[in-house]
């Protein structure tokens, strides 16, 4: 039997390589697509080519007769299945009935209309082409502002104004702030629709075991327990008869923080055909049918005093909803409103959101979910204000930061920022980039007609989502720790890491608490039959909330280990060090194995103590955490072509205590890559007929390795008082901090031409047009 290693070495805070990587980089991990079962069938979904149409009829005869086809289901068959859920409750929320297959109408390109089930996937795909759907095309609208205009086609005929919801928030006295202001700056700022683009598309294997009355659902998800509760409900199945497994998940970025029609549809199909069925989303489907992110048109107004003091902020936010609400759709712009003041000390805000139906795939959470949009808005506005007042953009930020002696800080939007020292990362970033010298260099460059820009963004964000009252489905998290009879340690986390590295960081936490080696620890996630109920991985919450649940479970377990140790050592005064319980007086010790063995053998038990070594904790966070940071981007613009070159990218992020700097670097790099994607290249473009014209990787420009600048990643450290680990979260910081720094840099470069604002993505043609018009 392998022994548990005795360790005096500690792991937290060290650059430890991710334990999950070997299987990922050697291609041996098990994704949904890798699951094979005897008798497995394959499903292909027929989808609408129209953005809006009435379905006159569906003829499946020819397809039914095609080789290998077992069944075909249409919306008529699935009428008994519950609607795709929206988890958000709001007073005036309009929720269209979101059936898993279209019935009489389709609302966006990609809308599922029928499912073909066949012996193999090739035959299923061929048969899909034989299904004849007779559509009567209807006028569509794809642009949210056009959808709000009078006379626009109604996405849902029952709501001719296309308004999906409205939301209003007031803080302080905005009217007074604006009345007293010396200056008011205004700007329309968009945050374009983006495709989250997980490398692994979605996929589902459903296995109905009729005799056991059990449905096993393998799905590429960030939230297996919530999927179980909600999909079981849709299928009318008792929740305990359903098991959801998220095997290896190849990226989510929020797009898999959802409950999709296909998850219920595959469950339905498997129950009908009494066989396992697999559906793997194609890349094309991923573009058109998996949620998109962003989709904002924001109208900002900022009021300030002549000395740069911000007095108040107004925001009219138009959110492109798409055709339906997915799980959290209406919540995302509300997160933008919460983050509206950024890290600046202003108590007067007013926000009005209008959610707009369009004939497009729904929007929902995408890396940052509302906070990148908000940060982009406020950070652009602060630069606009600085330009208006002829102030340095760094100076105006220092002037308005909430100061470090002001924490906890209550915002005008109802949040309480836990801890912060906002000037520290900006100071550090300015030093690192050599700000004063750079400005001199810029002045010289301008004299030579060159376009060089320096852009700053100082962001704050909301992590560790979140206190349960602030979330639609509970914001706590759970952890179980078991010391097995052999002394090995098993952790079961209710989070569902899929790239964030908690198999490593959670092992680091447990190894240090218990004094064992990393290899003694196994972290299990993503299986509702094995792991106690959990909420999942999103909103930079897994470590700050799930890690804290783990921390408390470990404290419970340690206490019990010590009890058994004390019993075996016949001592009252013991401590747990290096995987051993030591009698503080005699120095005698008992190893983990000896204690675990005794706890399970149970020949003798300490007073009031049960056998076994296992502890479960559900931890409810008292608050969110609020990381922050400063990103500075230096750009050079090719005056002839409009191409942007990033010369320097300096990121100083404060995510509280750092458990593993290597993993934090990885999260920052990935986040910045996606931020650059939005700033420079990516855009989901629908034409006026609601056709997605960037529906392939040949047209939708995701960042590639060769497009990346060198990212200089640094940190300051302000621990969070919200949890005992002092951690905040870093999964989305890079994305949130990035895009305004890039745009501010490019606008700065072009400011001598009178440029005030440019909307993303900053394509070379956009820049060239500006240059051509001004020169």
């Amino acid at each position, binding site marked *: 039997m392998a022994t548990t290693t005795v360790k005096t070495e500690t792991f937290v805070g060290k650059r430890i390589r991710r334990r999950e990587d070997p299987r990922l980089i050697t291609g041996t991990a098990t994704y949904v697509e890798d699951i094979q079962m005897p008798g497995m069938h394959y499903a292909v979904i027929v989808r609408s080519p129209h953005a809006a149409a009435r379905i006159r009829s569906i003829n499946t005869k020819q397809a039914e007769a095609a080789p290998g086809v077992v069944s075909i289901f249409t919306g008529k068959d699935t009428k008994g299945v519950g609607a795709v859920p929206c988890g958000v409750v709001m007073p005036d929320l309009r929720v269209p009935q979101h059936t898993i297959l279209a019935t009489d109408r389709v609302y966006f390109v990609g809308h599922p209309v029928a499912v073909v089930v066949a012996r193999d*996937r*090739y035959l299923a*795909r*061929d048969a899909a*082409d034989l299904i004849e759907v007779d559509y009567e095309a209807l006028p569509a609208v794809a642009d949210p502002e056009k959808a709000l205009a009078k006379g626009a086609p109604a996405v849902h005929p029952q709501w001719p104004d296309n308004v999906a919801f409205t939301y209003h928030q007031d803080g302080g006295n905005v009217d007074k702030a604006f009345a007293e202001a010396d200056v008011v700056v205004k700007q329309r700022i968009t945050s374009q629709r983006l495709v989250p683009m997980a490398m692994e598309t979605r996929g589902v294997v459903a296995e109905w075991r009729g005799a056991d009355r059990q449905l096993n659902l393998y799905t590429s998800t960030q939230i297996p327990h919530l999927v179980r509760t909600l999909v079981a409900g849709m299928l009318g199945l008792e929740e305990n008869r359903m098991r959801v497994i998220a095997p290896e998940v190849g990226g989510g970025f929020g797009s898999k923080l959802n409950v999709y029609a296909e998850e219920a549809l595959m469950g339905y199909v498997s129950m009908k055909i009494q066989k396992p069925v697999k559906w793997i989303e*194609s*890349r*094309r489907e991923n573009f058109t049918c998996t949620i998109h992110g962003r989709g904002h048109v924001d109208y900002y107004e900022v009021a300030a005093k002549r000395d740069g003091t911000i007095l108040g902020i107004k925001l009219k936010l138009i959110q492109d909803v798409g055709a339906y609400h997915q799980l959290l759709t209406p919540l995302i712009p509300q997160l933008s409103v919460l983050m509206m003041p950024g890290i600046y000390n202003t108590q007067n805000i007013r926000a009005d959101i209008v959610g707009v139906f369009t004939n497009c795939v729904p929007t929902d959470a995408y890396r940052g979910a509302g906070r990148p949009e908000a940060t982009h808005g406020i950070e652009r506005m602060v630069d606009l204000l600085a330009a208006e007042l002829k102030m340095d953009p760094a100076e105006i930020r220092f002037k308005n930061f909430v100061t470090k002696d002001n924490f906890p800080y209550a915002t005008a939007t109802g949040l309480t920022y836990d801890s912060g020292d906002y000037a520290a990362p900006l100071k550090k970033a300015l030093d690192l980039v050599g700000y004063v010298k750079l400005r001199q260099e810029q002045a010289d460059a301008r004299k030579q007609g060159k376009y060089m820009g320096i852009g700053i963004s100082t962001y704050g964000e909301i992590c560790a989502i979140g206190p349960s009252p602030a979330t639609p489905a509970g914001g706590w998290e759970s952890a179980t720790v078991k010391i097995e009879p052999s002394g090995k340690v098993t952790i079961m986390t209710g989070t569902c890491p899929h790239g964030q590295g908690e198999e490593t960081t959670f092992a680091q936490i447990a190894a240090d608490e218990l004094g064992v080696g990393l290899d003694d620890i196994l972290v299990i996630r993503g299986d509702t039959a094995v792991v106690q109920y959990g909420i999942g991985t999103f909103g930079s919450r897994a470590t700050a909330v799930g890690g804290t649940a783990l921390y408390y479970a470990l404290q419970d377990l340690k206490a019990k280990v010590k009890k058994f140790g004390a019993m075996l050592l016949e001592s009252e005064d013991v401590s747990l060090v290096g995987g051993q319980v030591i009698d503080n007086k005699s120095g005698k010790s008992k190893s983990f194995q000896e204690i675990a063995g005794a706890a399970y053998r149970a020949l003798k038990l300490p007073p009031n103590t049960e056998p076994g070594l296992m502890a479960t904790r559900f931890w409810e966070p008292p608050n969110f955490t609020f990381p922050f940071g400063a990103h500075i981007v230096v750009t050079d613009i090719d005056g*002839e*072509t409009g*191409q942007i070159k990033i010369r320097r990218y300096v990121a100083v992020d404060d995510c509280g205590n750092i458990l593993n700097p290597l993993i934090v670097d990885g999260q920052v790099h990935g986040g910045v890559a996606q931020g650059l994607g939005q700033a*420079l*290249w990516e855009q989901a*473009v629908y034409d006026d007929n609601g056709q997605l*014209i*960037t529906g*392939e*990787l*040949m*047209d*939708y*420009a*995701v960042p*590639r390795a*060769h*497009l990346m600048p060198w990212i200089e990643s640094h940190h300051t450290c302000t621990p969070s008082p919200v949890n005992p680990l002092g951690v905040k979260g870093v999964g989305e910081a890079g994305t949130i901090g990035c895009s305004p720094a890039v745009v501010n840099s490019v606008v700065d470069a072009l400011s001598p031409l009178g440029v005030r604002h440019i909307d993303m993505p900053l*394509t*070379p*043609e956009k820049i*060239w*047009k500006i240059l*051509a018009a001004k020169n």
Partner: protein
Amino acid sequence: MITQKFEYTAPKSLDEALHLLASGAKPLAGGMSLIPMMKLRLAAPEHLVDLRALKDLNYIREAGGQLHIGATASHYEVESSALLRQKCPLLTETAAAIGDVQVRNMGTIGGSVAHADPAADYPAALQALEAKFVLKGAKSERTVSAAEFFVDTFTTALEPGEILREVIVPIDDARTGTSYQKMAQPASGFAIVGVAARVRVNAGKVSFVRIGVTGLSNRAYRATAAEKALEGKTPSPADIQAAAALVAQGVDANSDLHASSDYRRHLAVVHTVRALKTALSRIA
């Protein structure tokens, strides 16, 4: 993304391949253009003949004072050929500018040229090099010039049943400088505009110049007006600029999501200037 059903043959000889092609099969080379089209079901050939199975179509060699490149030479093989680097650096430079590593490992010069994507890189260089294309059918073989070969978008001089067997390019002397300049479309890597320049200077004057342009219009072409304008000039920056200004003359420029026709025209001029200047600077 599943193709329709198709047959696949790895032929043992060129004759076998040509025989199958004569009866309606379609050649498969690197599959980098063909397979995506099949997966999107924009193409549905019933029978593919894999040209890469024919080892004797894969070569890069010098013969009779010219360079011969077999159809299935991959972009990577062209990019890394010591022979080409020395004797036709324009081609190695162009090959290196194609897509990404994976595409360069799989894609072939024959496939790229036969596919005739209006934004492909090779055609610009091959126009500037006045390359010759050897086309082979079951019964005949013929040689056509680049000017004749590129007809229209995805359309070449290839007749049904014919394959492109080899590409022939000249060997320039040391007084010739070349350069390929491109703006890549960020998603695909294809050229929004790409310009290949090939210049010779004699006694301080441009004695010979060829300019090949891709990405701008329905097919890669030689910018003859610009060439004429530069021939015999010193060439000063003003001469270069004046010549480059003619590069898009009479051309119906493409417009799409990635670049409007105005922007493409402008880029063609900018990249022509850059290609000419770089080419001139490389003259030994």
